[in-house]
């Protein structure tokens, strides 16, 4: 059993990606009903992970993996403990409901197949993220969730708002991912460990390491961007541009919790320090308050929920940072409760939108009769969100107060923050669940109707799950809460909280919260307008900051490009050759490697000298030529002179090739130049010519010095001797140059032939492909037409 387990898990991890491949085909065949088939994938995975539950509740962990890049000690390995298991169950369980819901929500959408693909790919990435053992695999999946989130937010790619939201989410979470990568690599460097399981078991003194602060900041950079902590929260509400199933799944139930997952995962090694216990509650608490205040001012159901998601994430970070066993237990309970009620409420918002045609609370009302099932699911989820019995949210809320109620000013402050935050979330929950359904039915909503089963199944199941997990709390604690809390705390933790209230401080605090919530609910319209005016007066937020940042980057890169990429070939050439001269000359002078003054040769063979002079004359007359023919002939002269030089110094093969090539060059050049009626003369002002002469002489001097130095150092004949000695005995060829070309270095020659062939093909296509007169180059002008 144990030996077959890993490979099944491996296949389960890959399953969603395979399903994503086939989703478009299935959707083409079965239309929106493909959802029923595709939902089997998460259901299967859910069943697979359920199989681990008993084993893990006994304190075991499931591990396995394959070697991925052995040279770098990188594995593809997974590690499933209580924390991973709970996440995996949430991802697959809610995932199944979301797939069904998507089928109903996007029924008839032309790109439904693509949507299913994206959702399944996301599911696979998120599952990989929470089960990863090796750091690198964790990072890869982390970024994959960012990318799939980008694709899903920008699903409606014809609207600028969704494109902006998608890009914003990618920039913020992707950028945070880079922080995370740096943090993980730093941990790897400091401890030499690249696997989560080993890191957790090592009990390493990371918190005493001098790099602790750097690691802490880098890890937080990843966690806070992904989990939308203030002031990086702004991308999450904007991500509501995505279709509602995406908001329910990625941006409330799963992906945004990846940051919290990271903090919880690393809590045993990074937690329990003053920095951790100060910074996390500070940011978390701020996010909690800011999120709820911003939620109050919204009128769109989805946006209200989105901002409360921000605050819930803040609450989770705050509790994780608080660090006591009870706080961790509370965080775990709240995380599970939140996934259930918030996922359901988002789906309810989508249902209301679907049935009534709007999500604006001011225009909604009286839908209870038309949408009874939706109303029931909404009210149940809102009760859970408000922390009232008999739903799972109640357990979480009680545990939060039990954890935070400790002596001292700091816990007292956090308790107050929690009361205000919870109270306001209470308000939002009931605004979403009551306002659209109660009161007189608005005229415009007369056509409102209940959604199909695909749509209401999800919220109903989640509401029932909230109820069931609370009623059978001891079973829930045994299978979910206790194992997960133990994994986060690093020590065994037992959860006991149940629906039966105990008289004590937590219950009193809950009562205060409820009273505060009811009071605020009655004043919600006034609160909203107050917040609206307040934000109007501030007038700037991180969201606008993002726009300014992006515009700044575009402007900066435009300016930089204009400077280094001016579009003038002349400038490029000048820079290139000045740098060539400097790269050769500066090190030579700096390291005192200048060549000695050469001795004049005692005897010069006269015809050698004559040919060199001919070559020089040819060269100068190319530059000075007044007409085309002179230039071409002069070019020929220098080329043939080079051929003769090769001949004189014992290189007949080179000589022949050079003769042939020069002849061809001259012929082709003559053909082209006579056709084009080009003059080879230079019409530039004198000072430009002088600058050019200076640059070319400097570069040429550099090459001369280099060559002089080369011939002055002792000659190393190893290679030449090898070829000379073995040419006949190994390769059976007397012409050593030929043997080198076709035998010793045959592959090089083969590559050379390929180059010649490619050049030939390119020439052929250049000659044959011609723009039709109507669409000459001007038609390609990027400034007009579609950009």
């Amino acid at each position, binding site marked *: 059993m144990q030996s077959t387990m890993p490979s099944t898990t491996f296949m389960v991890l890959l399953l969603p990606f395979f399903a994503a491949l086939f989703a478009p085909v299935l959707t083409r065949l079965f239309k929106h009903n493909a959802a029923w088939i595709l939902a089997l994938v998460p259901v299967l995975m859910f069943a697979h992970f359920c199989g681990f539950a008993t084993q893990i509740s006994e304190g075991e962990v499931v591990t396995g993996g394959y070697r991925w890049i052995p040279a770098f000690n990188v594995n593809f390995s997974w590690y499933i403990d209580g924390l991973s298991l709970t996440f995996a169950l949430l991802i697959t369980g809610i995932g199944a409901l979301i797939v069904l819901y998507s089928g109903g929500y996007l029924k008839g959408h032309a790109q439904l197949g693509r949507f299913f693909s994206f959702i399944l790919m996301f599911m696979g990435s998120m599952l990989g993220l929470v089960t990863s053992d090796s750091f690198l695999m964790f990072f890869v999946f982390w970024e994959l969730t960012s990318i799939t989130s980008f694709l899903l937010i920008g699903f409606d790619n014809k609207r600028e708002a969704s*494109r902006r939201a998608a890009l914003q989410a990618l920039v913020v979470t992707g950028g945070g991912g880079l922080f995370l990568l740096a943090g993980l690599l730093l941990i790897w460097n400091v401890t030499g460990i690249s696997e989560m399981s080993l890191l957790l078991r090592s009990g390493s003194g990371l918190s005493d390491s001098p790099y602790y602060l750097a690691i802490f900041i880098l890890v937080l950079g990843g966690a806070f961007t992904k989990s939308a902590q203030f002031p990086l929260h702004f991308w999450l509400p904007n991500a509501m541009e995505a279709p509602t199933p995406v908001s329910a799944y990625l941006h409330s139930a799963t992906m945004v919790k990846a940051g919290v997952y990271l903090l919880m995962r690393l809590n045993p090694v990074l937690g329990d320090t003053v920095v951790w216990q100060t910074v996390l509650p500070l940011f978390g608490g701020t996010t909690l308050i800011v999120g709820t205040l911003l939620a109050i001012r919204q009128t769109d159901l989805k946006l209200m929920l989105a901002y409360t998601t921000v605050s819930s994430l803040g609450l989770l970070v705050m509790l994780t940072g608080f660090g006591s066993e009870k706080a961790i237990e509370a965080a775990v309970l709240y995380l599970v409760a939140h996934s259930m009620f918030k996922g359901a409420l988002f789906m309810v918002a989508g249902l209301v939108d679907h049935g009534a045609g709007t999500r604006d609370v001011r225009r909604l009302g009286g839908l209870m009769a038309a949408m009874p099932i939706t109303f029931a699911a909404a009210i149940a989820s809102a009760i859970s969100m408000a922390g009232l019995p008999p739903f799972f949210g109640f357990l979480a809320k009680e545990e939060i107060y039990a954890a935070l109620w400790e002596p001292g000013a700091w816990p007292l402050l956090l308790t107050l923050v929690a009361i205000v935050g919870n109270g306001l979330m209470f308000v939002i929950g009931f605004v979403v669940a009551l306002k659209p359904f109660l009161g007189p039915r608005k005229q415009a909503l007369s056509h409102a109707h209940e959604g199909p089963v695909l749509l209401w199944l999800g919220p109903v199941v989640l509401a029932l799950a909230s109820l069931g997990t609370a009623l059978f709390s001891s079973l829930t604690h045994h299978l979910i809460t206790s194992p997960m809390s133990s994994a986060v705390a690093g020590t065994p933790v037992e959860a006991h909280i149940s629906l039966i209230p105990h008289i004590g401080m937590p219950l009193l605090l809950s009562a205060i919260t409820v009273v505060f919530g009811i009071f605020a609910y009655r004043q919600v319209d006034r609160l909203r307008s107050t917040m609206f005016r307040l934000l109007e007066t501030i007038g700037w937020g991180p969201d606008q900051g993002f726009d300014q940042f992006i515009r700044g980057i575009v402007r900066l890169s435009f300016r930089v490009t204009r400077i280094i990429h001016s579009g003038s070939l002349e400038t490029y050439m000048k820079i290139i050759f000045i740098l060539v001269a400097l790269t050769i000359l500066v090190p030579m002078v700096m390291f005192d490697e200048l060549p000695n003054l050469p001795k004049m040769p005692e005897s010069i063979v006269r015809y050698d000298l004559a040919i060199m002079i001919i070559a020089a004359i040819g060269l100068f007359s190319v530059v000075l030529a007044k007409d085309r023919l002179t230039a071409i002939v002069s070019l020929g002269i220098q080329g043939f002179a080079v051929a003769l030089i090769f001949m004189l110094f014992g290189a007949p093969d080179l000589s022949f090739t050079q003769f042939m090539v020069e002849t061809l060059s001259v012929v082709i050049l003559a053909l082209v130049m006579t056709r084009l009626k080009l003059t080879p003369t230079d019409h530039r002002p004198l000072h430009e010519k002088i600058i050019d002469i200076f640059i070319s002489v400097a570069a*040429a001097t550099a090459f001369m010095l280099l060559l002089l130095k080369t011939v002055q150092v002792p000659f190393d004949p190893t290679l030449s001797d090898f070829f000379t000695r073995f040419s006949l005995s190994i390769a059976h060829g007397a012409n050593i140059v030929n043997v080198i070309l076709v035998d010793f270095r045959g592959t090089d*020659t083969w590559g050379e032939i390929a180059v010649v062939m490619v050049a030939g093909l390119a020439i052929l296509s250049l000659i044959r492909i011609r723009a039709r007169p109507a669409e000459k180059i001007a038609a390609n002008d990027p400034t007009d037409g579609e950009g």
Partner: protein
Amino acid sequence: MEALMTLLVGIFFAIAIYLFLSRHIIRILLGVTILGNAVNLLIFTSGRLTQEIPPILSGNAAAARQMVTANPLPQALILTAIVISFSFFAFLLVLAYRAYQELETDDIEEMRFAEPENQQLPPLGY
């Protein structure tokens, strides 16, 4: 001999680079050919100008081992380089020819379709 050859290589480089720096495509093309020769001579000279005997062996293997010939290695390199630089030259020539046909200029400062002088800021939307 190498000293003289170095001087000649220097002249080759100077002329080639000077031609490269001018504004007319056709002069740049002439520069390409000359630069190819310059580099070939550079390699040839740095392999030492020793013998007038070409690197072709004669007789049996034992006798061949005793032979002293010109250095075959740079020759093999240069042979490849000549062919490549020729195909490069031919390609550039045709490219220049076609560019001239389309743009009706051979002045590189006037060939600015891809990178216009007064380029606008890209759109700032999303």
